[in-house]
């Protein structure tokens, strides 16, 4: 594994989890913002009477697209090239970075402006550019802030969700020598002033792609700040980098996806700007890099395939009670939250990311809000199965043995009774122990243990219940709704 593995090995979820909670301010700001967005966006989506039909339709379109990816990508390439774009294919991040560096060299690029793109985070593109002396400036406000702070995005739509206005004021004071302020408008003004000149100075603009349209060969980029529009049009060279799952069959379906993405992502009916890039005007250069980087691994696993339907709206992150408390960095790589927990193991490998599918209470909030109906909760369980059965940090012969013993005990009522009586005595005496080991300690850290009753239901049934089941119903004593309602 190349550069991607680094972050994961440095940030396994279990260790980061506690660290995130130790900083209540940081995680609370993020948690509250995510919760607020989630509630607002949910209200917006549910106010659309045909929301469920939209979701079904989008799921069907994406399903078709992913199952015909080979044909659609080739069609997209043909049509994009026909409009003057240069299309480059990349098997992995390394190859994509090589393409970018070739373009940099060809056009003698010194400075780059970037609009928000998660796929270039996968590539660690900014580091790669810096290594050849090219300065890449993030222009999306959130990305700009985390870049200034030397951090990584905590969220795929709102990268600086963890920063309060005060945090931003301090950051600007420190890095840009601006007088401290926490007023939103003044902060925006400062960012705008610093960013505006950069667009005109830059030799190249790099963007992501929200949708690639196979039938027209065009790409669609949506945004709210105007920075993407400037990044892709002011400099003479535009490089758009897309994950290969971004293609949809036709421009006809674009309105559907725009409707879903804006509402689920930010609670807007439509984003402020929607850019459709059809080819290139004379004297300018337009490159599209189509990146695999592990997506073929997802394609190979039928149970995981629908995770490629993702349109990166971030709704599952906002809805996730675990994400809200741990923040994005705990997930260790580019994509946090429930969607990150199901795609990262495929993109970087189980060896590095095997713990991620366990970072969930399986509550299902993610699946409920997903605008393209990815069955995230079921895929989490599926990947747990894969994780414990393949080389990964969660594969443990000891744990396997424990579950084997459990399964042996649970497959017979006699062994069940014996095993359970041991558990009952354990719980009963746990309160006299000064210290609780392992999982017991994990429970009692914040919770009382249940009281252990003096009998079990099955022992009660043997004495009382058997006769209870033989006793005829006693109509005189109590009303008997079944006879009245069901037999009617």
């Amino acid at each position, binding site marked *: 594994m190349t550069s991607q593995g680094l972050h994961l090995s440095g940030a396994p979820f279990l260790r980061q989890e506690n660290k995130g909670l130790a900083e209540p301010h940081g995680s609370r700001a993020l948690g509250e913002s995510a919760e607020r967005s989630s509630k607002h966006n949910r209200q917006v989506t549910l106010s659309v009477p045909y929301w469920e039909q939209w979701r079904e339709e989008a799921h069907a379109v994406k399903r078709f697209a992913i199952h015909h990816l080979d044909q659609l990508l080739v069609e997209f390439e043909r049509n994009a090239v026909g409009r003057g774009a240069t299309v480059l294919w990349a098997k992995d991040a390394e190859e994509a970075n090589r393409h970018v560096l070739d373009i940099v060299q060809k056009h003698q690029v010194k400075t780059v402006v970037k609009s928000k793109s998660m796929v270039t985070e996968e590539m660690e593109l900014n580091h790669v550019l810096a290594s050849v002396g090219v300065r890449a400036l993030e222009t999306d406000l959130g990305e700009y802030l985390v870049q200034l702070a030397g951090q990584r995005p905590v969220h795929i739509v709102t990268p600086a969700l963890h920063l309060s206005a005060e945090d931003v004021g301090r950051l600007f004071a420190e890095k840009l020598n601006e007088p401290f302020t926490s007023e939103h408008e003044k902060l925006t003004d400062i960012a705008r002033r610093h960013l505006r000149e950069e667009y005109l100075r830059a030799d190249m603009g790099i963007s992501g792609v929200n949708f690639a349209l196979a039938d027209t060969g065009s790409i669609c980029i949506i945004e709210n700040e105007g920075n993407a529009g400037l990044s892709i049009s002011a400099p003479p060279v535009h490089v758009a980098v897309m994950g290969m799952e971004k293609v949809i069959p036709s421009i006809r379906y674009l309105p559907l996806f725009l409707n879903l993405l804006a509402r689920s992502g930010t609670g807007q009916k439509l984003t402020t700007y929607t850019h459709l890039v059809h080819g290139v005007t004379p004297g300018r250069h337009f490159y599209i890099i189509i990146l695999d980087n592990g997506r073929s691994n997802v394609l190979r696993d039928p149970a995981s395939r629908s995770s490629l339907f993702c349109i990166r709206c971030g709704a599952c992150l906002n809805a996730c009670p675990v994400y809200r408390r741990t923040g994005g960095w705990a997930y260790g790589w580019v994509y946090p939250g429930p969607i990150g927990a199901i795609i990262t193991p495929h993109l970087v490998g189980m060896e590095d990311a095997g713990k991620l599918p366990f970072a969930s209470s399986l509550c299902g909030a993610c699946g409920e809000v997903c605008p393209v109906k990815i069955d995230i909760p079921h895929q989490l369980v599926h990947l*747990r199965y894969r994780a414990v059965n393949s080389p990964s940090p969660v594969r443990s012969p000891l744990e396997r043995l424990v579950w084997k013993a459990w399964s042996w005990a649970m497959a017979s009522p006699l062994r069940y009774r014996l095993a359970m009586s041991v558990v009952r005595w354990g719980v009963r005496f746990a309160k006299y122990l000064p210290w609780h080991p392992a999982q017991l300690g994990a429970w009692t850290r914040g919770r009382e243990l249940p009281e252990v*009753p003096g009998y079990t239901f099955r022992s009660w049934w043997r004495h009382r219940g058997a006769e209870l*089941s033989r006793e005829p119903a006693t109509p005189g004593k109590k009303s008997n709704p079944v006879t009245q309602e*069901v037999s009617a």
Partner: protein
Amino acid sequence: MITLKNGLPGGVYPTYERGEKVALFIPCYIDQFFPQIAEATAGILKDLGIPIVFPEGQTCCGQPAFNSGYWDEAARVVRHFCDVFRPFPFIVCPSGSCTAMCRVFFEQVDPDDRIVSVGRRVFELSEFLVNILGITDLGARFPHKVTLHSGCHGRRELGILDQPIALLQNVKELVYCELPNIEECCGFGGTFSVKMPGTSIAMGETKAANVVRSGAEVVTSVDISCLMHVGGILKRNPQTRHIRAMHIAEVLVQR
């Protein structure tokens, strides 16, 4: 292909013919730690004149291993479950989560029809009462302020939410208090509660705070596993110790 909703073909509940035997599936932790819930469940059904049986060979539905990724180990337990319950047309269980395991997830463990068809005959108590028997009033009386915690598995996999609310609202003198953010997970999540205790407890504390905010003296649910966690947090804090966690079956047998 049949479309499944609520783990049932077309989301349609079967018809219960009077006199048909109903098997009780009592999840392992209820059998061992909360037998009074199983007694209440048996009592409710018996009072409705329903012939009940408790197949004593039963153990567990296999969910703990399944959710931990140990599907092969879960499969052995699931097969045992199905052998025990195969003769019964209706299997009633006082847990949304275990019912979801049987009805929705057995298929993942073993797609054999002899497994899947048994799983699909498992019904959570409140849905059996409301959706299958059509009963919302059990003649209970419970003069307390009660709030409902809605377990995620039951609600999102099986659509259980209106049923327990309807049952509670028909309990005499019971004051139903709405739980703020009812849709949010309490953080129990089975082994998640001990694998990621920090996050699990933080989620539980939020839930406990919402229970306090609801103004209730009793928090109830169709899932005692969630309540073991939320109740354990409420008990830990002297200010919230007085709030009782009760399974809905225990509330419904109060007179």
